[in-house]
């Protein structure tokens, strides 16, 4: 990526500084070492010039998205980078004339911190990406963010922006929200944004309410308990950030900077931060263009068939209609179930674009599949049923690519060209496992990948083996927990074992969400393939039957011991998957677990944590 440069031009006696990496908006501007060197040069001109004011802004569509993640991972001297930021931004803050950050586009992390060091901020009202993602990466906004934001908008709003939003799938602020929180002083139309920001700088007159610190202890206590709910103490960063926000009430800015430096010196080298940097790379880079993706041109998809009208089929069909905007036809043997599905889909897809409802149709026969380019089945998980389905579809649509949403059966044996395994609820879960087998052509795989992309889902290419990746690992993990229940542990203890890892959801809650019968069915499939590692579970059967699981053994363990057993089992299963070639790299397992099971960044999915704790060594250099 091109180096970021601070570019100074005079607009009369106003210094106009552009933060620019010379690329278009698809490569957002970051702050790395070279950016700092260039900024120092500009600062000298600002400090020594006869300026009335300075305005900092970004290249079109981007303000600045903060520290360069690649340089973050390289932490030979964690204090040095933080200190350099404090020194630079501190000099901006100390300029003897008013400074305005004209936030014309995404302002994240260090970019937002730069803006906070200015006297005032203008914001284009179409900006949708304002925030501090640091805590989601198990670090803190340490270039003054934890200090200046609470000093500006108070502890409650600061805790929301710095700590709680990052833990909610890294939620960012839209312009209106940033303005309401008091982060910026004015919202401006984008059309003449910089011209009006210059005028704002010329006539700078601020009316700000001092922040409310009266309830600081209660506010932070509440925030801390929400952090507990999210990460269960498994990563330090959100807690440290709350302490720094509390400190901002009384500290001078220099005391605050010093506290940030201490905090970052600890956090940057922490296993959680290292794992997060790894997870970020896996999710944002590797899995967007995986090495396994063939070069072949994807086939044009002009009509889609969905076999089945159950819960998954309905959700998947709605997604296809909404994203591809092509005719989608369904088939179910049960007319009333079909009617219900059609009604649900039409209702959902027509919310924004009424014409989409007219694209959906269905029937109990097969004729409607004529002319389909792609047919996906989501019927009952039984191999013969699926075989019959594909035989019938081949007859009526011989050219169609046949896809299956099976969660554990063999894609090849049922006669599908490729698997597209969606996760429930389809609208919320980003992952789709793209399952290829020996007979999957490059064109088919390319089309499947491209379809997933157009559905705005995240694909990971996996091999055709029982349970693929997510269900295989989760079932293996779940088997360990069932074993604990069978040995007299309580569900509270197994929940504690998992939650202390920082899992977003207790396993007992997850089991109810997935449905114990479904989980049992998957376990049976896995058992058939790997009886040694996936023994059948009386406890799971009892739960599936609506009974209390009964203890049959007496090897009761502590939550810590259970957790260790879980991790060892996961490591063992991942090793088997790598040996079998289900995935080419541990990173693919991590991508699946992060995107499909909500595993936290700070575990690096799971393999980074397994390596950090010495439980496993996959012998691969992380991507």
């Amino acid at each position, binding site marked *: 990526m091109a180096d970021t440069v601070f*570019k*100074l031009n005079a*607009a009369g006696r106003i210094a*106009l500084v552009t933060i620019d990496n010379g690329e278009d908006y698809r490569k957002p501007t970051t702050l790395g070492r070279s950016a700092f060197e260039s900024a120092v040069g500009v600062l000298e001109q600002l400090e020594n010039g006869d300026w009335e004011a300075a305005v900092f802004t970004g290249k079109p569509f981007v303000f600045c998205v903060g520290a360069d993640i690649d340089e973050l991972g390289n932490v030979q001297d964690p204090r040095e980078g933080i200190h350099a930021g404090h020194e630079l931004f501190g000099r901006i803050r100390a300029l003897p004339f008013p400074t305005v950050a004209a936030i014309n586009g995404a302002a994240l992390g260090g970019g937002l911190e730069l803006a906070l060091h200015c006297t005032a901020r203008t914001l284009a009202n179409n900006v949708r990406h304002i925030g501090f993602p640091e805590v989601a990466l198990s670090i803190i906004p340490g270039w003054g963010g934890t200090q200046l934001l609470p000093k500006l908008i108070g502890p409650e709003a600061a805790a929301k922006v710095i700590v709680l939003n990052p833990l909610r799938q890294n939620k960012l602020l839209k312009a209106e929200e940033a303005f309401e929180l008091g982060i910026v002083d004015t919202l401006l139309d984008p*059309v*003449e944004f910089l011209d009006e920001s210059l005028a704002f700088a010329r006539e700078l007159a601020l009316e700000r309410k001092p922040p409310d610190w009266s309830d600081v202890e209660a506010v932070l206590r509440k925030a801390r308990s929400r952090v507990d709910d999210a990460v269960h103490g498994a990563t330090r960063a959100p807690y440290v950030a709350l302490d720094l926000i509390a400190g901002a009430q009384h500290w001078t800015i220099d005391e605050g900077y010093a506290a940030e430096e201490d905090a970052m010196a600890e956090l940057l080298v922490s296993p959680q931060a290292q794992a997060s940097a790894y997870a970020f790379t896996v999710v944002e880079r590797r899995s967007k263009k995986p090495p396994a993706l063939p070069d072949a041109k994807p086939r044009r998809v002009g009509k889609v068939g969905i076999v089945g009208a159950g819960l998954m089929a309905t959700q998947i069909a709605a997604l296809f209609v909404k994203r591809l905007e092509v005719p989608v036809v369904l088939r179910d043997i049960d007319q009333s179930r079909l009617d219900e599905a059609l009604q649900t889909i039409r209702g959902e897809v027509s919310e924004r674009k009424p014409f989409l409802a007219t694209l959906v149709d269905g029937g109990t026969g097969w004729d409607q599949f004529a002319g389909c380019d792609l047919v996906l089945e989501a019927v009952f998980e039984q191999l013969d049923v699926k075989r019959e389905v594909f035989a019938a579809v081949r007859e009526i649509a011989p050219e169609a690519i046949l896809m299956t949403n099976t969660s554990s059966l063999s894609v090849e044996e049922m006669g599908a060209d490729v698997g597209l395994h969606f996760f429930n609820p389809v609208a919320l879960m980003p992952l789709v496992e793209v399952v290829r087998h020996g007979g999957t052509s490059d064109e088919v795989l390319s089309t499947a990948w491209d379809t997933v992309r157009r559905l705005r889902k995240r694909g990971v290419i996996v091999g055709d083996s029982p349970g693929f990746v997510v269900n295989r690992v989760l079932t293996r993990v779940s088997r360990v927990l069932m074993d604990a229940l069978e040995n007299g542990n309580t569900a509270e203890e197994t929940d504690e074992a998992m939650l202390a890892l920082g899992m977003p959801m207790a396993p007992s809650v997850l089991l109810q969400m997935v449905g114990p019968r479904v989980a049992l069915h998957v376990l049976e499939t896995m058992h058939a393939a790997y009886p040694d590692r996936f023994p059948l579970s009386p406890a799971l059967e009892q739960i599936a039957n609506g009974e209390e699981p009964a203890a049959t053994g007496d090897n009761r363990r502590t939550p810590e011991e259970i957790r260790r057993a879980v991790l060892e089992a996961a490591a063992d299963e991942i090793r088997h998957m790598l040996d079998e070639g289900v995935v080419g790299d541990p990173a693919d397992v991590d991508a699946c677990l992060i995107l499909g099971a909500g595993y936290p960044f700070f575990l690096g999915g799971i393999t980074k944590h397994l390596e950090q704790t010495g439980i496993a060594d996959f012998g691969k250099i992380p991507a």
Partner: protein
Amino acid sequence: MREARDVFFVDGVRTPFGKAGPKGQYWRTRADDLGVKAVRELLRRNPQIPVERIGDVAFAATAQVGDQGLTLGRDVALLAGLPESVPGFAVDRMCAGALTAVTAAAGEIALGAVDVAIAGGVEHMGHHAMGEEVEFNPRYLSERLIDESAAVMGNTAENLHDLFPAITKERADAFAVQSQQRATAAWENGVMRETVVPLTVFSDDGWKLAERDEFLRPETTMDALAQLKPAFRPGGRVTAGNSAGLTDGATASFLAAEGTVEELGLQPKLRLVAFAYAGVAPHLMGLGPVPATKRVLEQAGIALEDVDLFELNEPFAVQVLTWCDELGISADDPRLNPYGGAIACGHPLAATGVRLISQLAYGLRERGGRYGLTALCIGMGMGCAILWENVR
């Protein structure tokens, strides 16, 4: 015949003009965005006009492709934030684009179709080379319908030197020096402050403030101009110094009907008295303003001596001098282009007309005077002249 309503020029504004090409200030700015800036500044300066009263937006460009290609009047209206109910259209009469936008909108107003209109133009000659995507019909040459020199404006200027040997290169250069000097003085007094709006533009060097015409060369001397090589023909007389360079820029103006002016409490600057377009031989296109001027005066029944101010476009010094000689006006007459012209500020083809009118309005007010004329030559052998009356 039903009675036509009087049409008033309420206000006009332009962007600073830039040099076309990668080194020019607008290289990374879209043409329609320049138009949007001019329109929004116009709205800002005339808050008494409710935007929903704008009945039409006539916007001109010569190259109606790319960032000038989306039916500019509508494109600029939507991008400038005008209500969806305000329509717009695109105009092309090459260099007379903006003047044609003005007369077309004036026609709508005179007939009572609309009460208020925006008329303007833009040309980003850096993004659109002259003649871009134009295919000349081969019949022009095979049937000798036009002389082939008609296709290159510089050659038509050389043709004028040929036709009028009395107009020497020295006279052309002297006129160019005068244009630069008058424009330089104009940047010192209020005319540019009143008619030019600065704007920030993105460039390879970051955001910059565009606030000046990039062609302005206050230091221009006869000696320096004498050194310049002819640009179009060996031994020719037309140089980069005595002609307007390739330019990027936009203009916009408000026109309103009599009655509406009173209703909204507007203070218009000019009343449109009459306008005329004329055709001449395409390879002598610079002659166009001569018949157009004669025709508009005749139409209005006004003698040349009664006109107090002339704003003529200056694509080439020889073109202005031809008009001067034909009408008997001295080239250094203080009534002619008192603030300099396109030689000093540039000529973004379809945008220029509104610049002439805005400066004419300023000039008539500053210097006093009743009638003023804006005139302009047009490629393929045409001319335009509009006669205005000062109402301030």
